[in-house]
């Protein structure tokens, strides 16, 4: 009797697992399937595209769409934002995790509070400022506002990673004659490398996915980032939304992220949940 209930319970759990995975993947799968249909079959509802067609992918890379350029813009903006945020955040997070000083809790709370800030509240005044000083359609007009969410995110994640490392390592290095700076450079940073790397991925994804800033700060197609460019894809006629090529472009923008996420899932989960389960 007990084995039967145990079996039932096991079955239920796996039904649940299947449901969760289906919930998460079904819409993404639909994007993939739709991107592989021919334009004529786009309204098909079969689960597997037949015949398989890469027509939409060719349409995406049609030079007229300028999608390659948009991907490059995204890479530049998200890349520079990530590097800047990480450099600043490494120092700050070290102080937050390793040093005792007055006002620490207040400062950390303030930094985290800025990450909850509505982005539009800084986009509106910065849009006016950047219009006045001629920064519209530049990379810096997107990178500077992006720091407002990237930097707190990086500080928070790194602080948690630094806190998890035992104090003794650093003390041992200092006993052996290292200064605090040397101990930081030669012991802490190399050991924290996985944490720094995870933080880099999470920050990069946040910056890569940004839409509101990029939409507001650019009006020239050549400077748009990928997320903005896709939302403005046009079809052969104005009345026709090019769903196929939009889905194909969506797959292209998402797949690098999904691959990164799958490769580093364990670390990313640890990073994302760092705040909640300290």
């Amino acid at each position, binding site marked *: 009797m007990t084995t039967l209930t145990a079996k039932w319970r096991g079955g239920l759990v796996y039904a649940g697992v299947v449901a*969760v995975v289906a919930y998460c993947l079904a819409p993404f799968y639909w994007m993939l399937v739709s991107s592989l249909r021919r334009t004529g079959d786009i309204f098909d509802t079969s689960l597997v595209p037949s015949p398989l067609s890469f027509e939409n992918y060719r349409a995406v890379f049609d030079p007229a769409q300028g999608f390659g350029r948009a991907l490059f813009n995204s890479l530049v903006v998200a890349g520079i934002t990530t590097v800047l945020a990480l450099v600043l955040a490494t120092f700050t997070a070290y102080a937050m995790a390793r040093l005792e000083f007055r006002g620490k809790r207040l400062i*950390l709370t303030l930094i985290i509070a800025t990450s909850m800030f509505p982005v539009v509240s800084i*986009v509106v005044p910065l849009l006016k400022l950047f219009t006045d000083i001629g920064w519209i359609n530049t990379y810096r007009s997107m990178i500077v506002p992006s720091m407002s969410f990237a930097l707190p995110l990086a500080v928070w994640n790194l602080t948690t990673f630094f806190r998890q490392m035992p104090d003794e390592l650093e003390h041992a290095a200092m006993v052996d004659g290292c200064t605090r700076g040397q101990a930081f450079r030669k012991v802490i940073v190399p050991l924290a490398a996985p944490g720094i790397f995870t933080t880099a991925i999470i920050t990069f994804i946040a910056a890569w996915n940004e839409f509101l800033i990029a939409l507001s700060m650019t009006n020239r197609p050549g400077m748009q980032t990928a997320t903005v460019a896709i939302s403005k894809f046009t079809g052969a006629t104005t009345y026709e939304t090019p769903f196929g090529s939009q889905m194909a472009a969506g797959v292209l923008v998402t797949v690098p992220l999904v691959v990164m996420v799958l490769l580093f899932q364990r670390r990313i989960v640890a990073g994302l949940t760092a705040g909640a389960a300290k």
Partner: protein
Amino acid sequence: MTEAPAQSEAPTPAGPPVRRGRASAGAGRLAALLVSPTLLVLTVVVLYPTLMALKESLYGAKGLDPATGFISDTEPFVGLGNYAEIFGDAGARFWNAFWNTTFFTVVTVGLETVIGVAMALIMHKAFKGRGLVRAGILVPWAVPTAISGLLWRWIFNSDGVANALLGQQILWTTEGVHAKVAVIVAEVWKTAPFIGLLVLAGLQVIPTEVYEAARMDGARAARRFWHITLPLVKPALLVAVLFRCMDALRMFDLPYILVGAQKHSVETLSMLAQNEASNVRFGPASAYAVILFLYVFLIALAFVRLLGADLVGGGRAGRRRRTEVTA
């Protein structure tokens, strides 16, 4: 507000207590050196624009000055005129956006919490295939919101798969209640797994002895959930819900792409502010931005005060559960 490193810690059930570095005069100076670049950048990119928005919200648009009849090149000072306008003539559009924002936040965060907790309970029970679930659950999180907007726009197309599955002919992305439904479905899809992850992390640090003791005392599954699981994951859940609320209150990408700009049924405060700014009406746009900022601030404050959500994890509830996630 500085806390001494090891004061009055409750005995830690999970792992040995963690010690931190000691305070010293040198540490203070070093800390100032290390922290100031970050604070400087945040001052420039967050504090300064916020003050600018406050000032800007007191100015009107360039153009014909009704008093003199001249076209002015500078923006006239209008005092609280923009705010008076918002709560007066432009009130209908503002209150609509305000209620949309609030409605989306309450409904999506509510649904996400229920679905997220259910997901976490399932994942916690599953041993085989946990890696697969975790990988799957990160996919919606990794998809850019803008792309997810397009994806759901395609799913909710009049000839799309949603109508095919439901056997209906609903024009989801046109004005009306169904547009709200579409936005909610898309938002919940993307963010419920995130809550699931955070709650799972909270579940994993509950010692199994607690459950065994309860089971021996004859507590049934439902009772164990209400009286043990829920109170123990509450800190993790509160932080997750707080973050989700803040995020939902500034919702922009999804309704903007899924339904479109200036759509009455889905326009949020962020969309309203952005729309005014992109039409070079910086005064009213700033006023909307300031109001949204205050709204977000008040909700965050209420969370921390009323529910005791512990952000920094320095409080006792937070410190008790300092173990790495071992999924």
